[in-house]
């Protein structure tokens, strides 16, 4: 599998599993607990035999002892289709080269988003789940349908690498025809309300949604030098960020991030804040962990 610069990252997440947060709908056999009952050897319960049931599933020993026909039920496991939806708006290209001054801040939000997307795709694919990709670009959505075939992760990586963040586009339409699990990798600076509406509908339909909120360290702590802060997606929005306004900016940004996290969680979406300078494998483990697990608390 040609995964280019992601080799070390994929190696570091080998063995990581991405369990479903709730029983999945039945389907092709997979690793996620399904809402249906299957015929596996693992016993769960009995159910009285009904006409039409497969006679091979009768518990013949029980029938012999009690003269009652019962069917042995076992937990079913199914695959969970996963869509990685990546925000490729211009704001994801931050910080630009002129701002990055040292190695600690060498990654852009787009780079962090790509790492999270590829690594999560690899983790899902390793669990046997079909994995697809959607990139929200100004020209429209770039889609890779969920597949389980080999090489899909490399294809996802190549697609992401071939794209350059620009303009602004909404990720909300990524939910149309999406599989059960959707991972949104975005900085939440676009059409947040529309995205939340689509996510709420998806969750209400039994789906599972995750948000990896990508935040740059420079956005948290901008340079001390005065600047005319200009929104890359709206050049008309330019405001002076000086020593006097820096405190107000940080307070407003912190408050907004808290509000966004609360709103996503209220919508039933698993929210994860992703800093662009954090190691990607740590981010991925946090994203795929079940709530309450040690990885989720990390």
């Amino acid at each position, binding site marked *: 599998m040609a995964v280019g610069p992601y080799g070390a990252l994929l190696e570091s997440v080998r063995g990581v599993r991405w369990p479903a947060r709730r029983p999945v709908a039945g389907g092709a056999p997979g690793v996620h607990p399904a809402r249906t009952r299957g015929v596996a050897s693992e016993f769960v319960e009995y159910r009285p035999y009904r006409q039409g049931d497969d006679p091979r599933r009768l518990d013949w020993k029980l029938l012999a002892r009690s003269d009652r026909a019962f069917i042995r039920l076992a937990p079913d496991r199914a695959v969970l289709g996963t869509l990685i939806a990546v925000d490729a708006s211009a704001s994801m290209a931050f910080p630009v080269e*002129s701002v990055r001054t040292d190695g600690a801040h060498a990654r852009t939000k787009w780079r962090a988003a790509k790492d999270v997307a590829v690594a999560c795709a690899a983790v899902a694919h390793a669990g046997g789940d079909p994995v697809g990709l959607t990139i929200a670009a100004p020209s429209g959505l770039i889609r890779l349908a969920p597949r389980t075939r080999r090489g899909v992760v490399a294809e996802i990586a190549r697609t992401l690498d071939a794209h350059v963040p620009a303009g602004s586009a909404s990720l909300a339409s990524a939910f149309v025809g999406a599989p059960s699990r959707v991972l949104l990798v975005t900085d939440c600076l676009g059409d947040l309300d529309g995205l939340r509406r689509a996510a709420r509908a998806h969750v209400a339909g039994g789906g599972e949604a995750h948000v990896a909120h990508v935040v740059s360290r420079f956005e948290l702590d901008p340079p001390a*030098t005065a600047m*005319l802060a200009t929104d890359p997606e709206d050049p008309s929005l330019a*405001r*002076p960020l000086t020593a006097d306004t820096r405190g107000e900016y940080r307070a407003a940004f912190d408050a907004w991030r808290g509000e966004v996290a609360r709103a996503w969680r209220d919508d039933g979406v698993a929210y994860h804040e992703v800093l662009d300078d954090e190691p990607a494998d740590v981010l991925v483990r946090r994203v795929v962990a079940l709530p309450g697990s040690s990885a989720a608390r990390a």
Partner: protein
Amino acid sequence: MTFLAPLWLAAAALAVAGVFALHLITTQRPPPQLLPTARFVPAGDARASSRAARPTDVLLMLLRCAALLLLGAAFAGPVTHSRGSSLARVLVVDRSRSSSVDIRDSAQVLARQGDALVLFDSSAHTMIDGNADSIRALVPTLARGSLSAGMVAAARAARDLARVADSVEIVIVSPVTADELDAASASIVARWPGRVRLVRVRAAPAASVSVSLVSDDADDALRPAIAAINATRPRGAATHAVRVLRNAPQAADSAAAREGAAVVFWPRVTGANARAEGLAARNATPVATLVATLARAPLSAGGAVIARWGDGARAAAEWPLGRGCIREVGAILPLAGDVALQPAFVSVARSLVGACQGANLGAPAGDSTVKSFSRGGAAATAASLHSEDEKSSLAPWLLAAALLLLVWELFARRRTGEALA
């Protein structure tokens, strides 16, 4: 190089510091930079103040600082002098009638090459070169001395010396008699900003007059007294000619008065109504008094009182005329008697036939007065001696250079503005 108003330099330095600070705290549009979270920055004027680690617009700042420094230097008034010596002296020598011939020796001892020499009596004469010859020919004059005139001339000479010296000292060589001082003397000396050394020399012998009696009477009663006065004249002292007339003054007498003589009209009256009178010569030191049988003669109005009768009436008065004076004496001696032979009369007559207004000639000034003219401390610095009307030849050039820089700054500012736009 010295500055006439060095405070302007300090003001210019402060202004330069202000310009530097303003270039660090710029109120211009900060450089635009992409920030996706710009929406969380409080809205405000895009032209925000910002503090830079390095001054902005270095060329403009340098032009402004240079212009300010040049303006400060121009207003400070730089004066360039080539200093020949560190300390110059002004020798103020008293050649008035108060000085004895010893003044020449003292001046010769004190004088040195490069000193300015001020010789004063009633007026002052300043000499920069040829001091040795001037001192060698120094002889006390008959004029009354004026220390004020000497100090004024000395201060003027000191300012000239300050162009070539770092500091200037004044040395006064004078007996400092009371008649040389006036109300302005103390204040003139007090205005001198440095050290004043007073070398006090011996004063000339007092009241040295040569009295001649013009009388057609060989037995004139005044002859013995005048002879006694002339007999006591000290040798070597400057003499003042005094002509005593028994008859009304003539044109020749007036001419003599104009040339400096004291013409005393002391009439001889026969048949005068004499009686016992008290007579006091007011200008004598101490006051000479006489009680004798005398007659009164009327005096012309006005004039300076020389003697008074016991009841306060004027007994003698004096009017200046040219360099000398005309004096009238209203005390009539009896034709018979020995009044003129009495020592008291000789004392009174010494004042009545003295030099013009010369009663205090040679009287030394008090020690406290003399002390006030001698001041210690450092010599006056050249900077403190620059006169208010002194001009700086460099100031116009500095002003022109500052204006050129300001014009350049104007163009540089426009260019910078266009570049920013």
